[in-house]
């Protein structure tokens, strides 16, 4: 029999009817619906055992305590460690996405020379050659670490230079160091005991110093109260975050901080509000008023507010003697609640005397701010975990990223007490990276190893038998049985904090009222944030909302 077209139609009709009685349509529908709910191209989180580790954040010199959530040995979340005595679990916004930084598109993955890809051996050879030819300069963004002493030792041996590079907060403390002959590293702000804090444009609530420390203090003692126990007076031309939340905001003309300080000084001295015979400021109250755009009465009122509720301390964004002088006038230097000694001064080794002639080469540690430019002429060996862009001169050497190397965290500049912590290498670097210290050690194996220096530092602290270790529980160092135990605690993410020094008094006086000269770089997008890049999720803050200005000099 022959099949006609019609037969075909009938047959297929039957087939269609039949299909309905098979799993085909129904199963396909079900599978497709599952597929459309879990498209294979959607990124999948890695699975594996979840654990919690404690460490310190190494992205700026505040060294906040962090709690890292790890899945399958990879950090999947960062949060504050409430055990940390200064930050008490508070962090800056960027730290919460820091664990993603190691995959940042600008992560430096290979050695580069003048923009071209090179190798570690070439870099090493080039550096050794340079060492043979002339003095080497080593720039260290965060003095006081174990790595720092490696640099110092190397500089000594090579008769090179090791100039201290001070952060904005440290430079703000410089004038007092100068007037009192106390090393700047030994000074700090005793915010915990202050009752009035007068900020000349310092972003106290926006990442200044140790971000968590002041925000915690402020939220406990000031936030929302009509007459707070801690008065924050913000002097700033624009209504910043800090100004918006301050007890008083005093808007002044751009750059008229020094005249205002002088005016306030005038009032205090004329009206005998301070018991010091300090030098008279060069401005009259009227001149100050004219310069700042405030009414003379307003300046007087400010002066009275300053002394109304003591102790009071004045904080500046950058180093500026003309404002720092106020603290001397108010007797806030060397007094509780003011600028205090953070340790009984240990004799520090004589600094490496600076090189007279030009430097042959400069080695920059990965903590040096990307904006920092080395002295011209010298061959640059810059270590960095992220490429800030725009640098095709000299060598660019990939350094360990977030939590990729063991490093110690010394006392942050603004702290009123000495602290010490360790940041563990929780993550295995994806590419071959080296820290500057490691690099130098490969060139000169006789240098002290970072591990050894850390052990020595632990030994030293343990011998002194003072201070407390803040781990799962807080334990007095005196109660610890061995230095190993102490070091183990630190390696598990504990923080050591020293006791207040025995004799904290020191004298600090002024010959004449200093002139204004601003030093140091003003606070960055989030003050203190050192890496040249921002975590990818920072876009939430400046692109997906109107909360913050786009980053200045920071790669998103």
């Amino acid at each position, binding site marked *: 029999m022959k099949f006609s077209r019609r037969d075909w139609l009938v047959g297929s009709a039957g087939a269609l009817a039949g299909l309905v009685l098979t799993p085909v349509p129904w199963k396909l529908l079900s599978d*497709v*619906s599952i597929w*459309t*709910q879990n498209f294979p191209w959607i990124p999948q989180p890695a699975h594996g055992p979840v654990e919690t580790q404690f460490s310190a954040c190494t992205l700026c010199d505040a060294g906040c305590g962090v709690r890292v959530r790890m899945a399958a040995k990879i950090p999947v979340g960062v949060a504050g460690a409430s055990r940390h005595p200064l930050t008490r679990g508070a962090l800056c916004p960027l730290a919460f996405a820091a664990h993603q930084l190691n995959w940042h598109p600008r992560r430096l993955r290979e050695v580069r020379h003048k923009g071209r890809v090179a190798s570690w051996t070439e870099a090493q050879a080039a550096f050794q050659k340079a060492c043979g030819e002339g003095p080497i300069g080593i720039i260290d963004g965060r003095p006081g670490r174990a790595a720092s002493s490696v640099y110092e030792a190397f500089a000594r041996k090579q008769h090179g230079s090791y100039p201290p590079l001070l952060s904005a907060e440290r430079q703000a403390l410089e004038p007092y160091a100068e007037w009192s002959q106390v090393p700047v590293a030994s000074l700090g702000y005793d915010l915990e005991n202050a009752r009035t804090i007068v900020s000349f444009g310092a972003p106290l609530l926006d990442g200044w110093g140790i971000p968590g420390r002041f925000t915690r203090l402020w939220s406990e003692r000031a936030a929302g109260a009509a007459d707070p126990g801690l008065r924050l007076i913000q002097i700033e031309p624009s209504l910043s975050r800090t100004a918006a939340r301050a007890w008083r905001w005093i808007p002044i003309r751009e750059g008229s901080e020094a005249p205002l300080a002088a005016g306030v000084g005038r009032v205090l001295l004329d009206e005998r509000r301070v018991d010091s015979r300090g030098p008279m400021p060069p401005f009259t109250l009227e001149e100050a008023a004219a310069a700042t755009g405030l009414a003379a009465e307003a300046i007087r009122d400010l002066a009275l507010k300053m002394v109304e509720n003591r102790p009071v301390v004045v904080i500046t964004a950058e180093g500026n003697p003309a404002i720092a002088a106020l603290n001397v006038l108010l007797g806030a230097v060397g007094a509780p609640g003011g600028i205090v000694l953070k340790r009984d001064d240990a004799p520090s080794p004589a600094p490496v005397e600076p090189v007279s002639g030009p430097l042959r080469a400069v080695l920059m540690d990965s903590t040096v701010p990307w904006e920092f430019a080395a002295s011209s002429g010298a061959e640059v060996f810059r270590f960095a975990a992220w490429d800030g862009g725009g640098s095709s001169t000299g060598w660019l050497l990939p350094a360990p990223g977030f939590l990729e190397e063991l490093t110690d965290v010394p006392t942050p500049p603004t702290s009123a007490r000495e602290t010490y912590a360790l940041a563990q290498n929780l993550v295995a670097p994806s590419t071959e990276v080296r820290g500057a210290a490691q690099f130098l050690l490969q060139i000169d194996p006789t240098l002290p190893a970072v591990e050894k220096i850390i052990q020595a530092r632990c030994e030293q602290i343990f011998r002194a038998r003072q201070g407390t270790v803040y781990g799962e529980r807080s334990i007095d160092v005196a109660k610890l049985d061995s230095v190993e135990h102490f070091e183990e605690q630190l390696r598990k993410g504990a923080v050591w904090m020293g006791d207040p020094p025995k004799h904290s008094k020191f004298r600090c006086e002024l010959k004449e009222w200093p002139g204004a000269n601003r030093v140091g770089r003003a606070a960055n997008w989030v003050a203190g944030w050192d890496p040249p890049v921002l975590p990818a999720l920072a876009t939430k803050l400046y692109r997906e909302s109107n909360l913050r200005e786009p980053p200045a000099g920071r790669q998103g």
Partner: protein
Amino acid sequence: MADLVVLDRRLIARGAERSSMMRFMLWLLPWVALLALGIYAAGLCFYYGLNQTHMDNRFAFGMWIYLDLGMIALGAGAFFTGFLVYLLKQEDLKPILNNAVVVGLICYSGAVAVLMVDVGQPLRAWFTFWHPNTHSMLTEVTFCITCYLGVLVLEYLPVLLRNRQLRKVPSFLIFEHQLHKLVPVLAGVGAFLSFFHQGSLGGLYGVLRGRPFAFRQGLAIWPSTFFLFILSAMAVGPSFLILVTATVETLTGRRLVAAGVFGRLAFISGILLSIYMAAKALDTLVWLNITSPAVGFSPWDFYAYKPFGSALLFLEILPLGLLPAFLLTLPWTNGKRGWVLCGAALACGGVLLNRFVLTVQTLALPTLPFDDYLQYVPSWQEVATFAAVIAYGVIFYSLSYRYLPLFGEAKGADKNVSVG
């Protein structure tokens, strides 16, 4: 080409005068081009996602939803004429019926097509049928529109089967005959479904208690907009039919319907429009004085934002509401074609404005006290996608008109045939 012309001739009903193949092609050409562009734009949206549009998190609905609502309102003529002819036995409107079905089919299929581009995961759109949320107006809309689209297709079939070539297949003839008996039933079902989804389209915004500008008190389980939409759709449906037919008449240079038909449609349209206006005025008063203040929004604030001043409200009620209502009903204008067309146009404009206010203005207005008033301008992809629907409509209508007896056999008529 030659045999194409032959085929074309064969498809055209005997005795029907149609323009030459060439002219018809030329007429279609621009529309086809527009259609192609739109399909490309829609393709972009499918491939790259809705970031191709200018909608955003606060302007979550854009011009697509607005024009969907508009089209479906204008397409209401289909169900309403069916309702009049078969259920209210207004036999004299029968000549307009096929035309109404085609217009309805175009509006609805077009709207559904655009909706498929509008949703973020079209592949999962069918979940609504599998896990329906019976409390959602959108569920009601989805169900009714899909069903009614089916009804429209069934209503269109007999018209299609009356094509000269298709008639030749005997079984088709039988089928068509059977369908014909069914048509009154279909009209009934269609009317029922349409009442509901026209209503639920109104409900769509009326239930938004989070948007006090659109939120309305309920009668039974439906907000007042539910009923206002049914009324307004019924009111403008016939008006739109008048406009379409008149347009076709001018394009083809033929009288397609008996003189009386426009008058009847206009009168019905006008009466319903005036009822609608009364209802709307009442509703607006209730909203101004009770609904809005009750939830902490002083209603006149909504009109404090330019360009959407309160002028818009009065524009909708007076020149685009009462005026056309009069033009369409009053004997001394109802008779005159010009006035009728003008009235119909105003009426359609009024309802389009109403849909615009409810969709676009609602989203532009702030709710939180620290929100700002928002602007939104559709992207070319949005515009093109929608233009494609218009093009599709024109093409579909042209083909139907050319090869199917939309207005019965157009006998005689003057010879100066232009397009169509």
